[in-house]
């Protein structure tokens, strides 16, 4: 459950989000669209607490994100899957290692990680590229890699254009 109550966010006194309120229930699939600069990325940043609202409240599972301590933020993020506009893949790691990283962070066992990553890569058609570095992948493949690692969690994605392309492929 995600809830926003009268959220305002300013950058250099310019409003990026103005009095935003909505609620997303469990199992809902929501698409947010808007022109460039409309505040879509800002909204995502507020949801995984990369930013804090200047006014209003953001609640995830009924917890006010502004009240989370710094040590609670990783726990919040581990329960989310975020695919970024710029893919955010670690360049020195293989596709397999990149996809496995969130599970490693969660402290999953090596065997379980191997199984799940293989499954996820297979689901997005990247099995053959498992040992490749991100630089050798096409843009579409680069976006599918993080998608596979977020499949089992609360899922958020920036940049709808890429999202749509990736979703149609998977």
């Amino acid at each position, binding site marked *: 459950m995600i809830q926003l109550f009268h959220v305002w966010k300013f950058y250099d006194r310019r409003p990026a989000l103005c009095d935003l309120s909505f609620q997303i229930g469990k199992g809902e699939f929501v698409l947010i669209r808007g022109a460039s600069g409309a505040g879509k990325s800002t909204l995502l940043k507020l949801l995984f607490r990369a930013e804090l609202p200047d006014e209003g409240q953001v609640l995830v599972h009924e917890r006010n994100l502004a009240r989370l301590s*710094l040590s609670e933020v*990783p726990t919040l993020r581990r329960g989310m899957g975020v695919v970024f506009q710029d893919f*955010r893949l670690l360049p020195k790691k293989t596709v397999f290692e990149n996809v496995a990283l*969130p599970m490693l962070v969660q*402290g999953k066992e090596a065997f379980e990680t191997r199984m799940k990553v293989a499954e996820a890569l297979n689901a997005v058609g990247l099995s053959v590229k498992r040992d490749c570095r991100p630089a050798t992948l096409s843009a579409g493949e680069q976006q599918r890699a993080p998608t596979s690692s977020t499949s089992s969690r609360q899922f958020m994605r920036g940049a709808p254009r890429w999202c749509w392309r990736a979703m149609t492929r998977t």
Partner: protein
Amino acid sequence: MNRLRYFLQEAMGNIRLNRTTTVLAIGTTAFTLACFGVFLLLYLNLRTMVGSLQDELKAMVYLQDMLPAQGVMEVERHLRADREVASLTYVSKEKALTEFMRAFPSEHDLLKGLGDNPLPASFEVTLAPEYRSSDAVMRWAERTRLTPGVAQVQYSRDWIDNLARLLFFLEVVALAVGTILAAASITIIANTIRLTLLARQEEREIMRLIGATQTFVKAPYVLEGALFGLVGAALSLALLKGGFEFMKMRLDQPGQALGFEMAMSFFPTKVSLMLVLAGLLVGCTGSLLSLIGFEKGKL
């Protein structure tokens, strides 16, 4: 296990990223520990030497010339009753002369010129270990000198004390040199790790975004510092061992020619392990220092 392997892989990756500074950091750590190790080696060997010399510390209680047997027995009874005396051996005038002849065969004529045996009878006294300090020996000698029948009391405490003073001096110098060099080593390690931190800023940001804790993000850097320290310590031990064996070989030959053997020994395993731990501590301190306040509060 999975995480530990990951941390190790990351630390090795960091090391590969800054090869030159890594070599510099490891080299400084090795040099620091080797310098400290040289003083420690000297200190430990000298301490062993002083200890064995203190065990052998003997005082000579010379008796008055022509003291009758009854008088000798009185002195002996007095000494045996003294709790500061651990053991004693009587050296008669004749035995003293025989020993003198054996020790100085070329000085026969010197004693012949003096007529009768001029050497006094004496008691060779070994003091109890708890009464071997400089002050205690001096007080005991003063008191014993007043015993009827005793002509003189001699002991060779001074040069052992000088050696002990040298030992203390070495201890202070080793600590001072060790501290200064350790500070230099810690600074270099901290800077090396800071370079890696700057080079991998983006990767850490990604790690944080996928929910990695600060500990998880920073652990590879601490491990990197620890590896610097461990490798540096191992290298310093190898250097010290090589240098020690070389010096021992060089000192043993003239020693044997002069009729004595150098009883030098290398660090026992416990001390070697402590040196490795010191390296580990230097490495970890360097890395922790570079991480303190770095990206503090970053989300």
